C-alpha cells in the first residue's frame, strides 16, 4: 500500500527502481480495461458487442479527464471531514509546481506526518514521484466503473451511461478510494487490510452493479430468448489480458519493486490457478462438462478474491483463497436465476461475491511474513492465532463500502432513469445497441450484404471491384 503525505513534507529522493516498476504497473493496469471490454463483449450477443466494448472504453476517456481536474485530489488529498474525502486543493489539475516536484514516500517520517498505519522503519513505496502514483491510481479509477457495465449489458443508452460514469466516480469511487487507499477512515482509522482494492474496486463495483440491475430492470426476453455468448474466444482472450494486467494491479500496489511485490505476484498467480480449477470442478460435477467460459470466469474470480489479500496471505493461503472463490463464484452466478435479477454478465456473482470472499478470508488467512516485509508485522488472521478482531474489521470495511456504493448508485441510477436518459426503448433493444446507439455493426463477413461486391456499371466482369463512397466526411 502506498501512503500519501502533503507535498511540502516530502524530501526523499527518487528511487529509479521503484519508479520504473510503478510506471510499468500503471501501463499494465491500463490494459485491464480493454481486456475487460473483450471479456464482456464476447459474452453478449453479436448485435450488442460494439456497445459493450464502448461502455468500457469510454471509462478510460471520462475518468482520465475527471481525475486530472479533481479525482486524484479527492481520492488522495489531505483528509477532510474526518476521513470522508480528500482536499480538492492539493492536486487540482495535477500541474502545480510543488506537485510535479513531489516524491511519494512510504517511510517512517511520512507515516508519522499523516498518521497512516505504516509502522516505523519501513521503506516500501519510497521514492516514487507523486505524478507516477497519480497515473497508477488513475488506472484503478478507470476500470472500476467499467466493471459495472457487464451487469447492465444490452439495455443502456451510451451517453446516459457516460454521464452515469462521471457521476459515479465523483460521488462513489473517489471518496471510497480515499477511505481505502488514501487518507480516509478505512485505511487509517479502523485499519482494515485491503492491499489492492477488494473493497474499493470489486465490492464497490459489484454493489453498484446490483443496484443498477434493480433500477434498470431486466432485458426484453430474459430467460425466454437465448442470450448466448457470441464470441467465446474473446472471453478467454479478455480474461488472459486481465490476468496479465492484474500483476500491475496487485504487485504494483506495493508501490515499489521489492519482496512484498514479489509475494503479491506469487499469490496472484497461485490463487488464479486454483480458482480456475475450482470453477471447472464445480462445472464438471454440476453440468457434466468443463467450459471455456467457465475457465475464463474462474480465473477472474480468483484474481478478484486475491486482490485484497495478495500481500497478507502465504502462497498456500492464496491457493486456498483462490480455490474457495472459484467454487463459490461458480455457484453464486446461479443466484440471479433464483432471485430473478438480470445481472447479464454476473458482475454480482463474480466481483461482489469474489470481493467479499477475498476481503473476509484475510480475517482467516492473514499471515505475518516477517523478514520478507522488512520486519514489518502484519496482522494475523484466525488460522494464525490472531483471533477474530481482524475478521471483524474486514467485515466492517466490506459492509460499509457495499452499503455506501449500493445506496448512492441506486439514487444516481434512479435519477437518470427518471429523466429518461438511461434505458433504451424496447424497439432499440431488440434492434441491438450497435445499430441503435452507434450506427455500426461488429461483423461484416458477407461480401454480398456488406456491399463489398458493388459493381460500377459499364465495366467488364474481370475488372477489380470498385465501391462508391458517399458520406459526410468523404
Amino acid at each position, binding site marked *: 500500500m502506498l501512503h500519501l503525505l502533503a507535498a511540502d513534507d516530502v524530501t526523499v529522493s527518487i528511487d529509479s527502481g521503484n519508479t520504473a516498476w510503478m510506471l510499468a504497473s500503471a501501463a499494465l493496469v491500463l490494459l485491464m480495461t480493454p481486456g475487460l471490454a473483450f471479456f464482456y463483449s464476447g459474452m453478449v450477443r453479436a448485435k450488442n458487442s460494439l456497445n459493450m466494448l464502448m461502455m468500457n472504453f469510454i471509462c478510460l476517456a471520462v475518468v482520465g479527464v475527471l481525475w486530472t481536474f479533481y479525482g486524484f485530489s479527492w481520492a488522495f488529498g489531505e483528509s477532510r471531514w474526518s476521513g470522508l474525502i480528500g482536499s480538492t486543493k492539493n492536486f487540482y489539475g495535477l500541474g502545480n509546481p510543488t506537485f510535479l516536484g513531489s516524491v511519494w514516500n512510504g517511510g517512517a517520517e511520512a507515516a508519522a506526518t499523516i498518521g497512516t498505519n505504516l509502522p516505523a522503519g519501513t521503506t516500501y513505496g519510497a521514492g516514487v514521484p507523486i505524478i507516477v502514483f497519480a497515473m497508477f491510481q488513475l488506472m484503478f479509477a478507470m476500470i472500476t466503473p467499467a466493471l459495472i457495465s457487464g451487469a447492465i449489458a444490452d439495455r443502456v443508452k451510451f451517453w446516459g451511461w457516460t454521464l452515469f460514469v462521471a457521476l459515479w466516480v465523483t460521488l462513489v469511487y473517489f471518496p471510497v478510494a480515499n477511505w481505502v487507499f488514501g487518507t480516509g477512515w478505512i485505511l487509517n482509522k479502523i485499519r482494515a487490510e485491503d492491499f489492492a482494492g477488494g473493497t474499493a474496486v470489486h465490492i464497490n463495483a459489484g454493489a453498484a452493479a446490483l443496484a443498477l440491475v434493480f433500477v434498470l430492470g431486466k432485458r426484453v426476453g430474459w430467460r425466454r430468448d437465448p442470450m*448466448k455468448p457470441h464470441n467465446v474466444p474473446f472471453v478467454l482472450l479478455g480474461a488472459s489480458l486481465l490476468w496479465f494486467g492484474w500483476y500491475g494491479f496487485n504487485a504494483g500496489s506495493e508501490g515499489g519493486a521489492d519482496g512484498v511485490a514479489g509475494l503479491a505476484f506469487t499469490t496472484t498467480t497461485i490463487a488464479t490457478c486454483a480458482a480456475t480449477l475450482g470453477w471447472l470442478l464445480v462445472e464438471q460435477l454440476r453440468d457434466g462438462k468443463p467450459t471455456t467460459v467457465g475457465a475464463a470466469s474462474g480465473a477472474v474470480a480468483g484474481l478478484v478474491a486475491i486482490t485484497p489479500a495478495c500481500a497478507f496471505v502465504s502462497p498456500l493461503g492464496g491457493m486456498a483463497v483462490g480455490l474457495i472463490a472459484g467454487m463459490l463464484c*461458480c455457484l453464486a*452466478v446461479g443466484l440471479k436465476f433464483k432471485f430473478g435479477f438480470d445481472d447479464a454478465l*454476473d458482475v454480482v456473482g463474480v466481483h461482489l461475491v469474489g470481493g467479499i470472499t477475498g476481503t473476509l478470508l484475510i480475517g482467516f488467512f492473514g499471515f505475518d511474513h516477517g523478514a520478507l516485509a522488512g520486519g514489518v508485522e502484519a496482522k494475523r488472521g484466525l488460522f494464525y492465532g490472531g483471533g477474530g478482531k481482524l475478521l471483524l474489521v474486514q467485515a466492517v470495511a466490506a459492509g460499509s463500502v457495499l452499503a455506501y456504493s449500493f445506496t448512492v448508485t441506486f439514487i444516481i441510477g434512479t435519477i437518470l432513469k427518471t429523466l429518461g436518459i438511461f434505458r433504451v426503448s424496447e424497439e432499440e433493444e431488440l434492434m441491438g445497441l450497435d445499430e441503435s446507439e452507434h450506427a455500426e455493426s461488429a461483423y461484416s463477413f458477407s461480401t454480398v450484404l456488406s456491399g463489398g461486391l458493388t459493381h460500377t456499371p459499364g465495366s467488364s466482369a474481370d475488372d477489380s471491384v470498385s465501391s462508391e463512397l458517399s458520406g459526410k466526411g468523404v
Partner: protein
Amino acid sequence: MKLVTAIIKPFKLEEVKVALENLGIQGLTVSEVSGFGRQRGHTEVYRGAEYTVDLVPKVKVEVLVGGADVTKVVDAVVEAARTGKIGDGKVWVTEVDAVVRVRTGERNEDAV
C-alpha cells in the same frame, strides 16, 4: 431436368462432392443451413445457464441434372453421405421447368 437437393452432415460434404465429380457432374451449389429432423438439437451450458440448441448445422447441396442421370446422382449422394447414425439428412428431387446458362443463353438440357 431435375433439381436434386441434399441436406447432409457438414463433414460429409467432401465425400459427396467427390462422388458427384466421379459421375461427371459439372457444377453444384452448396449452402450452410440449419434445421432439425428426428436428430433434434443439443444442450449448451454457459455459467450454469442451459441453452437448448434446436437447430443443427447442416450443408445443403443442390445439383441440376438431366432427366436420365437422376437415379445415379441420388444414389451416389446417399451412399457418400450415409454414416448410419441419426441425423444423416435427406435427399429429394424436384422437377425443373426451365434452365438458362447466363453467359451463352443456352437453354434447358444444353444448359445443365
